[in-house]
């Protein structure tokens, strides 16, 4: 048995060379990291929420309750998968799979450190935004296929919101691209030698963070799943592991948008001393902590406020910011 494996491995190595090694190691690390990140973030979210509301949060399972999420995961795995009879079966089943499928792809290009990047694609940033777009499709599929009024309303709202906030997100990323003259994430980090883009582009950084919070459907932009009015929004009908997949994808997406923010605006793996992946991870989790903090502090926006904020303020500001950047670049260079 082992022989077959080693022979297949040799064939792979001969065919692709060291690339295969990078591919396999990268895959294993990315897969492990997605799981650990989700376990940690769910725990962090509950702990932070607890302390903000003057509770202590999970504390029974493991030290400080860190193992709570694992137990919850096992529970989710053992719950019945219910497909409602009126639902459209195929789309209903496919939706959680489609929502999780693309979350691994951004790990190909995320630059954790100077040499800790699986593959430096020259279209890295585009790749991440392109695969993030699949999320909306999956939510609409799941919400519509459920044949549930709450789910449908949640899905429709989600599409309107994600579509509106994707534009300021793209435009603020563009004002970084115009300065770095590259879509490769490594080149963008290297362009921030000395000065992080957050100090050059503070407006774009704020726009990006607002847009990213809305893209991940988190409060104050969590109108697609607004618990107090829509039960659970688009995933009302999902139970057990299918719901778990939505959850896993959501927390991985949080990590991805925070990583992109770190890369675009906060200097990636660079720090005052000792550049390395520790800086990258520290910045990412600091940003995520901020997002969690915002969620448990601010109330939900009303829908008209939500749409008007994007179309009347964020998008015009982002457009002006992009043009101003282009003009200043001409004057300076």
């Amino acid at each position, binding site marked *: 048995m082992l022989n077959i494996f080693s022979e297949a491995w040799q064939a792979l190595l001969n065919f692709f060379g060291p690339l295969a090694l990078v591919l396999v190691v990268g895959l294993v690390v990315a*897969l492990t990291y997605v799981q650990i990140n989700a376990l940690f973030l769910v725990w962090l979210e509950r702990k932070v929420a607890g302390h903000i509301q003057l509770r202590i949060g999970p504390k029974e399972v493991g030290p400080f309750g860190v193992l709570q999420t694992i137990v919850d995961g096992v529970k989710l795995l053992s719950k019945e998968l219910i*497909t*409602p*009879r009126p639902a459209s079966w195929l789309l209903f089943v496919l939706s959680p799979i489609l929502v999780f499928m693309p979350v*691994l792809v951004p790990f190909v290009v995320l630059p954790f450190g100077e040499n800790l990047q699986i593959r430096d*694609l020259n279209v890295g940033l585009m790749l991440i935004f392109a695969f993030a777009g699949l999320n909306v499709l999956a939510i609409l599929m799941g919400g519509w296929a459920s*044949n549930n009024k*709450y789910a449908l309303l949640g899905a429709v709202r989600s599409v309107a919101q994600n579509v509106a906030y994707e534009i300021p997100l793209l435009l603020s990323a563009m004002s970084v691209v115009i300065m770095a003259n590259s879509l490769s994430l490594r080149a963008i980090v290297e362009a921030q030698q000395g000065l992080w883009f957050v100090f050059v582009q503070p407006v774009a950084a704020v726009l990006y963070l607002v847009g990213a919070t809305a893209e991940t459907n988190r409060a104050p932009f969590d109108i697609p799943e607004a618990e107090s009015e829509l039960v659970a929004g688009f995933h009302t009908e999902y139970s057990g592991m299918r719901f778990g997949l939505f959850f896993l994808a959501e927390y991985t997406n949080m990590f991805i948008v925070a990583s992109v923010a770190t890369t675009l605006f906060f200097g990636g793996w660079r720090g005052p001393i000792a550049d390395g992946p520790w800086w990258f991870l520290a910045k990412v989790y600091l940003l995520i902590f901020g997002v969690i903090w915002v969620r448990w502090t601010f109330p939900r926006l009303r829908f008209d406020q939500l*749409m008007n904020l994007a179309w009347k303020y964020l998008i015009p500001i982002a457009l002006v910011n992009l043009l101003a950047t282009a003009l200043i670049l001409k004057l300076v260079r």
Partner: protein
Amino acid sequence: MPPHLLSDYLFVLVFLLVGLVFAIAPVLLAAIITPRGVGLKRLTTYESGMAPIGQAWIQFGVSYYLFALIFLAFDVDVLYLFPVLVAYGSFPWRDLVGIALFVGILSLAIVYAWCKGVFEW
């Protein structure tokens, strides 16, 4: 296509396929090991405890379709900016004028929607 681009896309493809496998696996496992409940009521859609009234697949006014239209006019065109921005700075002033014209015409979509009262609720 140069070979290194081919292996770039091989990475993306493999990650996507593995993502697919790891999305299917837990659902499949759950489908095998989880208990099956009895009774038809559990297969109805959830409506906060009441018996569902009709279906969700009915005609209703989605007031967001106008936003979808502006988005189509906007976001798809914004994508064309990416290649321009990557090459930005290789011409003296021409690229700035180009971008200003392009973005100016694009923002007319918002101005138009604003004047038509799409943003009034």
